[in-house]
């Protein structure tokens, strides 16, 4: 077993060696511009891009022409919301979204709010899921688009996208979902789920960084988005810029592998996740599982280790790459907005650790991490005045703390 151990696969994933192998020729011999229509270099590049487009489309049950390559999911989310509002804004300027979306959606929605749109922020359950009935209640005659993520990047909760899609269809409202965390892990079918726009990122599914896609429905209804990047009219005018062929090829290969291996890989990561959870819960009393156990990404585990602060725990786990909802690990010194939105109190948000198990994690690594966590929490609780008070039966909520 090699140290450090990478267990932060919601943040990013390594490129699968098979992806790298597919990409390499497109950096050297096959370096052509896919838009060069008059010579063999261009044709080869175009052919590779179109194969990748098919591979990505297949992963989500779309047709190749519905895939627009972007620089990543942040751009896809931006185009999905801003591009739709720019195109359909004359019909209405109301957007419905949730407070646990990725910042790329939240911040875009806030920008639109400052620029004449109205945004309804949906309630989210303690399990981290949006109730489709709440989506229906939020829709108004002037609602243009609903944006609700498929899988949450912090707590791993998976929304019932099909039910939300059905509500949107019923009311003739466009439906966008950020499927960055679920693509390749959970089956996606844009037809069955009634999705109109969907954001993808290659580097969360063992592809390269710097490439993503936006699915834009072409039939029933034909969805239009105004471009954010203007220029040579690439990607059917929706996203100009010379296509990064090697990255697109890598993205396609990653999508192909993810689809072919989804079932076995999800079963394997789920088994590892459950092994980690069982070992931690056996070795550490009084933990809190954040998010839904039933509707959850297979590789995600988010646990609050009560009376222990997350960053100090990360320090003990320094051979392990995981992340924390603790304020101390964020630039803003605020605890995770996702954990707050699902109703977790600040102290438990500070105490949370997110484990993200992926394709390349092993049972041996899981056992090592679990063992380390059990020891570190015991050590830090022995240092914690709160744990001591809790053991003595003192209700910490009864104490008047001086906020600082």
């Amino acid at each position, binding site marked *: 077993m090699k140290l450090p151990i990478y267990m932060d696969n919601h943040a990013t994933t390594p490129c699968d060696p098979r992806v790298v192998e597919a990409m390499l020729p497109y950096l050297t011999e096959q370096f052509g511009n896919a838009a060069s229509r008059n010579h063999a270099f261009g044709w080869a590049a175009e052919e590779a891009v179109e194969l990748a487009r098919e591979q990505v489309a297949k992963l989500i049950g779309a047709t190749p022409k519905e895939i627009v390559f972007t620089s990543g999911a942040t751009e896809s989310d931006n185009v999905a919301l801003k591009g739709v509002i720019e195109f359909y804004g004359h019909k209405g300027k109301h957007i419905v979204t949730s407070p646990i979306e990725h910042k790329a959606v939240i911040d875009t929605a806030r920008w639109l709010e400052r620029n004449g749109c109205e945004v309804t922020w949906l309630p989210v359950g303690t399990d981290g899921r949006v109730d489709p009935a709440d989506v229906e209640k939020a829709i108004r005659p002037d609602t243009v688009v609903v944006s609700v993520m498929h899988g949450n990047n912090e707590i791993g909760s998976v929304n019932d996208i099909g039910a939300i899609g059905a509500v949107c269809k019923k009311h003739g409202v466009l439906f966008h979902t950020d499927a960055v965390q679920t693509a390749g892990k959970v089956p996606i079918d844009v037809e069955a789920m009634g999705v109109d726009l969907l954001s993808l990122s290659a580097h969360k599914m063992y592809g390269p960084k710097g490439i993503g896609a936006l699915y834009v429905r072409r039939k029933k209804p034909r969805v239009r988005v105004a471009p954010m990047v203007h220029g040579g009219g690439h990607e059917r005018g929706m996203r100009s810029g010379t296509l990064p062929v090697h990255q697109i090829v890598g993205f396609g290969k990653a999508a192909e592998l993810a689809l072919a291996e989804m079932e076995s890989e999800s079963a394997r990561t789920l088994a590892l996740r459950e092994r980690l959870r069982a070992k931690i819960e056996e070795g550490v009393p009084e933990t809190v599982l954040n998010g839904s156990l039933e509707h959850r990404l297979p590789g995600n585990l988010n646990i609050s280790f009560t009376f222990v602060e997350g960053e100090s725990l990360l320090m003990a786990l320094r051979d392990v790459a995981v992340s924390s909802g603790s304020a*101390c690990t964020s630039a803003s010194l605020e605890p995770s907005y996702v954990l707050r939105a699902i109703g977790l109190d600040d102290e438990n948000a*500070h105490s949370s650790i997110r484990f993200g198990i992926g394709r390349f994690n092993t049972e041996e690594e899981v056992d090592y991490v679990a063992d380390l966590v059990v020891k570190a929490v015991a050590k830090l609780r022995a240092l914690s005045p709160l744990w*001591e008070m809790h053991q003595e039966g003192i209700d910490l909520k009864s104490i008047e*703390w001086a906020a600082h």
Partner: protein
Amino acid sequence: MAYSDKVIDHYENPRNVGALDKSDANVGTGLVGAPACGDVMRLQIRVTDDGVIEDAKFKTYGCGSAIASSSLVTEWVKGRTVDEALTIKNNDIAQHLALPPVKIHCSVLAEDAIRAAIEDYKRKKGQG
């Protein structure tokens, strides 16, 4: 974030962890911070009849820098008089541990803990 060697040393080998008898007239207890803010320090001192801090114990809920700051001040206050201990400033702590700007509040909290413990002691002695 990279931690300084001193922070890592205090985090891995915290000095003077534990508790002193709260009901002892010579013991002062300071509990500062708040769980919601992510750090709580408890610093206790036992003072001899001639005003010298003969023992100090701490427990801290917080990040590595908060643990290190409180561990460090237990070492620093021991052997000092109460008045000398009051001259320890957060800057000294931050500088000694090479805390980055976002961790300065940990050293501020440690200074607060010293003051709170001494206040508690003085109150018990009727000097407060």
